[in-house]
Structure formats: structure tokens, C-alpha cells
């Protein structure tokens, strides 16, 4: 399989924002219970941008650099295997040049700091990201203003931002009625919100689109993802 096909198989192709905001400056949110695969999906989204020759900043709150880097290496390997990608090593080396990881301590993260950091990077011509993923952002402890600030930053920098949020056990029932906590009441800030749910006795993970529509109609609002590579599976039981 070639790089092009790989891009097409990515679940992110099926997600499109609800409002008509510019493709390049929108916010997305991945929700799931602990351990289902938020980081994996975020890395997957980042890899998609990388494969499209775009630059990505990965902001990791509370995780070390090495660990985050491992996520990328592992995910790429899994995807390459899943899709039987040719010359994987070469592609890996070439795209990782466009990725940059910024890690923060839990207590040290602030929007102002991040913005300053990004400005620095752009000024020094180190990287000009078009996509940013923020992993480990604590929604329970932040207020609306911070996210609004992030949204402003996204449109000022022409940036697509994806967040991950941990929701609790009851999320599964809550999602029928609306957006589960801790992000309740914040949904208007995001263009796309998805929920990951493990499916028992299956090798798939359900990706439910809570906000935003699926671009491809036949998939509806539910996508089946491979548990390892997070790519769309067609022959899932």
C-alpha cells in the first residue's frame, strides 16, 4: 500500500465540523474512559497531518518526552503493518521531522505559556504547525475562558486543535442525551466531538460522533476502528 491510500483510510477523513468554520482553524475533542485509546487516536490524527506533509505540535501534559515519542513510533509501526505500507522506514524518518513535542508538568501548564512557546517556534522558523494535539488537558479543572482563549489562538494561528478528555463510567449512558461530563456545557466551543467506546467481544472500537457529521453517509454516526492501528475496519463483526 502506498502513502496515498493510507491517508484515505484514516478515520479523520470521515469527521467534518458542523459549523462552517474554516477547515484549518477548528477545535476537536476526543472523549473516552481511561485506557480506551484517547492518546492513540490523537497520535493517529497527528500522524494523518504528518502524512499530508503538514507540521504538527504535540502538547503533552504530564507525560514525558520519551513516552510520547514512543507513542508515535508504536502507532506508526502498527499502522504501517495494518496497511502493509511499503518503505515504512523512509516515510517514518521523513515525517518525524515535522513533528514537535512540547511537554508540561501538570501544574505548570497554562495557555499563555503555550502560546508564547508556539510564537517562539514560529519566529525561529523551527516549525509552522497546522495541527496541534493536546493530550492530558484537565477539563475538570479548567474554566471556559481558557478554552475560549485556545479557540482564539487557533484561529489567530490558523491551527487545528484536538483535545482529549477523560470521562467517567456513566459517559456511555449520558451520551444519549448530550455531551458527557466533564465537558458538559463546553460543546459549543468544539466543532467535532467524538466518543470512543470499547465493544465487548470484538476486535473493534466504536467511534461515536457526538457532534459534527460524518462526511461519508454509509458510515453514519458510528465508525468501527481497529483496536491496534485505529484505522477504519470494513469487515468488523
Amino acid at each position, binding site marked *: 500500500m502506498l502513502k496515498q491510500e493510507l491517508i484515505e483510510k484514516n478515520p479523520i477523513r470521515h469527521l467534518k465540523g458542523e459549523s462552517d468554520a474554516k477547515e484549518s482553524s477548528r477545535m476537536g475533542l476526543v472523549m473516552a474512559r481511561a485506557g480506551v485509546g484517547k492518546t492513540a487516536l490523537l497520535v493517529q490524527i497527528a500522524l494523518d497531518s504528518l502524512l499530508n506533509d503538514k507540521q504538527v505540535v*504535540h502538547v503533552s501534559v504530564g507525560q514525558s518526552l520519551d513516552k510520547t515519542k514512543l507513542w508515535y513510533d508504536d502507532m506508526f509501526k502498527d499502522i504501517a503493518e495494518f496497511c502493509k505500507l511499503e518503505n515504512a522506514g523512509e516515510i517514518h524518518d521523513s515525517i518525524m521531522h515535522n513533528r*514537535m513535542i512540547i511537554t508540561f508538568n501538570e501544574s505548570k501548564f497554562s495557555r499563555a505559556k503555550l502560546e508564547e512557546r508556539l510564537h517562539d517556534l514560529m519566529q525561529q522558523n523551527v516549525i509552522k504547525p497546522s495541527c496541534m494535539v493536546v493530550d492530558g488537558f484537565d477539563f475538570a479543572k479548567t474554566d471556559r475562558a481558557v478554552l475560549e482563549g485556545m479557540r482564539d489562538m487557533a484561529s489567530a494561528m490558523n491551527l487545528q486543535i484536538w483535545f482529549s478528555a477523560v470521562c467517567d463510567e456513566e459517559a456511555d449512558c449520558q451520551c444519549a442525551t448530550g455531551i458527557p461530563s466533564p465537558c458538559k456545557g463546553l460543546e459549543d466551543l468544539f466543532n467535532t466531538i467524538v466518543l470512543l467506546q470499547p465493544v465487548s467481544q470484538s476486535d473493534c472500537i466504536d467511534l461515536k460522533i457526538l457532534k459534527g457529521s460524518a462526511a461519508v453517509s454509509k458510515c453514519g454516526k458510528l465508525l468501527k476502528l481497529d483496536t491496534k492501528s485505529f484505522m477504519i475496519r470494513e469487515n468488523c463483526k
Partner: protein
Amino acid sequence: MKDLSKVRNIGISAHIDSGKTTLTERILFYTQRIHAIHEVRGKDGVGAKMDSMELERERGITICSAATYCDWKDHSINIIDTPGHVDFTIEVERALRVLDGAVLILCSVGGVQSQSITVNRQMTRYRVPRVAFINKCDRTGANPDKVIKQLREKLGLNAVPIQVPMGLEGDMQGLIDLVKMKAVYFDGENGDKIRVEEIPAQYKDECDAKREELLDAVSMFSDELMEAVLEGTPTEEMIMAAIRKGTLALEFSPVMMGSAYKNKGVQLLLDAVNDYLPCPTDVDNFALDLDHDEAEVKVSNLPTDPLLALAFKLEDGRYGQLTYVRTYQGTLKKGDSIVNVRTGKKAKVGRLVRMHSDEMEEIEESGSGDIVALFGIDCASGDTFTRGDYNFSMSSMHVPEPVISLSITPIDNKAQDNMSKALNRFTKEDPTFKTYVDAETMETIISGMGELHLDVYVERMKREYKAEVTVGAPQVAYRETITQRADFNYTHKKQTGGSGQFGRVAGYIEPLEEGEYEFVDQIVGGSVPREYIPSCDKGFQKCLEKGSLVGAHVTGVRCAINDGASHAVDSSDIAFQLAAMGGFKEAYMKAKPVIMEPIMKVAVEGPTEFQGSIMGSLNQRRGMIIGTNEEDAYTVIEAEVPLSEMFGYSTDLRSLTQGKAEFTMEFATYRPVPKSVAEELIAKAQKKDKK
């Protein structure tokens, strides 16, 4: 046999100029190892005992003197040098392995400086418990509280003072011990007369508050103390036991203060070393089982178990090679025969001595956990000794391949002799330092792990061995490899008088995922006679030594032969070797060879405000920035940069950041060089060939 609980193996670490030398001088004086105090910059012109090496002072790094030994209140304390420079990965690792605990010295004005951060991080990695000593409390601007705050914020230590100074700067009178709640004065010309009194009234409130804080912090480690605190009856012993417990678990760091120069607080620091730092049995040490893929095995520390000892430092003394060893388990006796695990060689322990800075004391045996020196044992630094019954090693046997080399030329005959002596010594001390003579240019080449690494050795050669050498430009160790499969079918024929040569081999070469070289024999039907198959293997291996692109070592190749032909008379070993070589050369260019260069993992640590310019500088050097990590006011930037671009980086970095940033690098991997660079290298190699 000594009581192990009364032995302390400690390191003293400090930033340049925070008074390490002065403090060590005082420690040696109070423990009666020396009988007069000489100041570092004293008028008597003698200079302090530990201050002997020019290079050490210039660069602010520890190079010489391995271990000093002293006695304090029936405890034996071995003080071991902790090198602070991370470029010498192996040496640092060894020094930290030998330590059980450490004293972190900080200047009360300067506070936590960059080197303290680096050393502290390594100690955390090797789980070394530490106590802090805030020195120079007599200096103008002294502020121990600020330093304690930095210890917490910058180093992430749970630092709590166990003393309160009585007066700071010029009028420092003494210290108040918060455990005993007594004021301590240091009388006499050299501060050696200790006077203990009640706490003066003006300090009473401050002390009560600070003691409260201390009890709060340490009662976490002891339920007994917690209860006693609630009932209002904590005893001295309970507090001390709790402090010790917290310190050993690396969850607490007691902070002491004083002024070594003004002879204040040193004795209390020694008490604290005895009271709070671990003895050899308090610490878990691990050996690597070489029979089981270097699996970690806990050592027992029991003197009755089989011997396990680590040689961690070599010194060229007046009486030959002195080897410092630490025993981890078992007993080392005079007259014993011991086995060097690395070489498998047997040696006899002739003389066993305990070092007392200048003189030495002959001893009969040394128990586990002790540090002693051996005479006349031929070994390298980092070797493990056993009695031959174990195949364990105390330090990893894996030595990374050197990635950078320099040519050195002695300026005269005398220097030549000294140079070879020095090289002989250095290669023994440091397994990552290698030397050889280039067969083509007849130059002596030294190779190591980085620019600074080689720099220090060249400098040492000059100073310690008086070997003046001129140094060539650093060379990066490039490699070549192939990226696709290519077939060959080559016939070697020669018939010019005498017996001819004939051999034909056919097969292919292809990239090998892991490993350097593999030979595959797929001959069926005996088209190449059995006896000549090893000849083909040999021929291929000869080709690997020098690739056709830039003459670098070729790696990652699988060579397979699947057909061939021979002649009953003219075929020979050499004919098939030459045929294989011809075949390899035929296929090599078709297999799209590439040049690989060593990539270093670089970590730059500096104040956050310079982050942008640091990243810019790495970017310029073909660096791939992996990410950044914010640690309070400091930021660590990690990147992968080709070694060839890193020459002179330390100078650049210094001017870019006003000397506030530091970097470390280690070898990461080999990666193909970009096309433009490859073309340049090939052009250069061709030019060299023509000459």
C-alpha cells in the same frame, strides 16, 4: 571485621566555587587527617590539600584523586569524588554506583546552579540519598531560605532545614539544632571547640516555628513519631530515626547550613552524615548476570558470601598502579586469588591498603561495603572481580562504539614516549576511549564518544604526561550500507604463466535488517566445492572493510551465493576470495549504497527565555527537534543532531545564552546522510584517493 553499620561511602558534589575544597579541608582537619588548615587562596602559599590539579580548577570538573578516608565518632567515612561531567557517561555511572549517599553543597548566595541540577538528576536516577549543606552563610547576601526554596522548586527535593543560623553574613555566631533544640557555638581558633547552650531568647519563636515545620514533614515517615507529636512528647531519637528513614527512601532531604571558611557547622554536617546517610547494607545494589543477558541480581552485602568487587578507579601512584575497589559482597583478603570477570584472568592480591589521603595503611582483609586499594593488579576501570565462581558484573559490559576520532602527532621524540604511556593508561581507565595507528597514514588515531571527551584526554596528556601533541581535525565515523537487492555473477580468471586462477561465483547481496553482516550459502549440487565456500565468505568480509563510496565500513549486508563454477587445477582459496570480491563490487553500486552518519541524541538545558534561540541553533545544524520539556525556570530541549554538525557547539551555545545553557549528547543511531552532504563526502573521498 568492621561493623558495616558504621561505614559511610559518600560523595560530595557542588557547583564550582561553592566551597567544596574548603569544606573537604575542614573535614580532614576535624577528623584529624591533617593537622593544619591551609586556605585555598591562603597567605601561606601551601594551598589546600585537595586543590592539586590545574586542569581541575580551570574546567571545574573533577578528574584526579579518587577516595579519601576519615574517621568521625567511631564511624569510618569514605569520601569519593563525583565527576559532574556527563560526557563521561561510563565514569559517572561508576562513581555513582560506588556511593551510598551524598552531600550536596550549595552556596548561600548563588543557590542552586546549573551543575547542581545536572548532578542532582543523575543522583536521582541512581537513587542516591542526599543531605544538603548550605555553605558560605557568612557571605554578604546570604539567604538560606531562598536556597531551600530553590532546592524544592528546581531540584524537586523535599528539603527541610534541621538547623537555624544564629545571625547571618558578618555576625554569624553559630547554629541552632532543631532536633535537639540547642544552640551550638564553635569556639577556638579553628572552631574545634563545640559549646552547646540553651537557645537565646530572640531566636526562640523562630525555632519553635521551624521545628513545627520539621516535625510535620518527618512525621510522615514514622507512625510512632506522629503519635508522639500529637501527644506532644517526641523524643530526639524518634525524630532522628524518622529523618533517616525519609532520607533513605529519597523522600526527604535534611538541610544544614554553616560556613566552612569561618569554621561553622562542619562538625554537625559530619554528625548528619553518620546519622542520616545510609550504610552499605541500607542500599540495594545490583549485579548483572552475564549468563542471563545481563539480568539484574541483588547483591547480598554479606561478608560470608562469594566475593563481588568493582574496580572503579585507577591511579598511577609512586609504587605502580593503584586500583580502588569497592566490595559489594564477600571478603577480600591478602593473598587471595581473584578473577577479573571481563578478561577471565587470575590475579593474586599482593597488598591491600586503605588510603589516607597521602599515606596508606596496610590491612589484611576488607569486608563487604568497604572501599580499599589494591596494588599491582592488572585491570581496567569498571572491571569486576570475583573468586571465579560467579559470572556477574557490577557494571554493564556493553561498551558503545566510539563515534568520533582525531589524529594526534607528538611534537618530538620525548613526547612520543610519553604519549604512548598516556594512551596506554587512558585506554585502561576508560573503555570508551580507543586508540590505533592508521595503516595508510601512519598517524595515531584516538577515538571516543564526543569532542569534549577527546579534548580532556589531549589536555591530560599534556599536563600529566608532558606529551605535547598536535591535533588533527575531528573525523566522524561514517558507515555505508545498501538499500536494495542486487545480483552478481562474476568470474575471476587469470592465466599468465605458472598455475592459473579460476573461480566463478553468482548470488546476490541485500540489506540486512539487524546486525552487521550475514553470509548465506545456497549452493546446491556442488557448483562451488565445499572447501572454497569459506573463501567466498572471507572475500566478502574483506570488501566490507572499505566501501566504494567514501571508504567507510560497510554494514547491514547479507551476502548470498547460489551458483558458481570451479576448475580442477586452477581453483584455489585465493581465486574464490577474489571472485567473491569482484562479485561484491559488481553488485554494490547496483544495490544503491548510501552513506550513514552517527546521529547524536542532544539535550540542551537552559533558562526558558533562551528556548527559541537554542532551537534555532539546533535547527541550523540539521537537527531534528524531538520536543521540549519545561522544568520550572529551565527548559530541556531534546533533539537528534548529526555528530558532524556538533563540532564547536559548546562555544556557540555559550555565546548564544550568556553561558547559561548546557548540553549533553550521546550516541543514538546511524542514519543516511542527505543527498547534498553525501555528494560532498564522495567528492572529498575521491580527491583524497587521487592524492
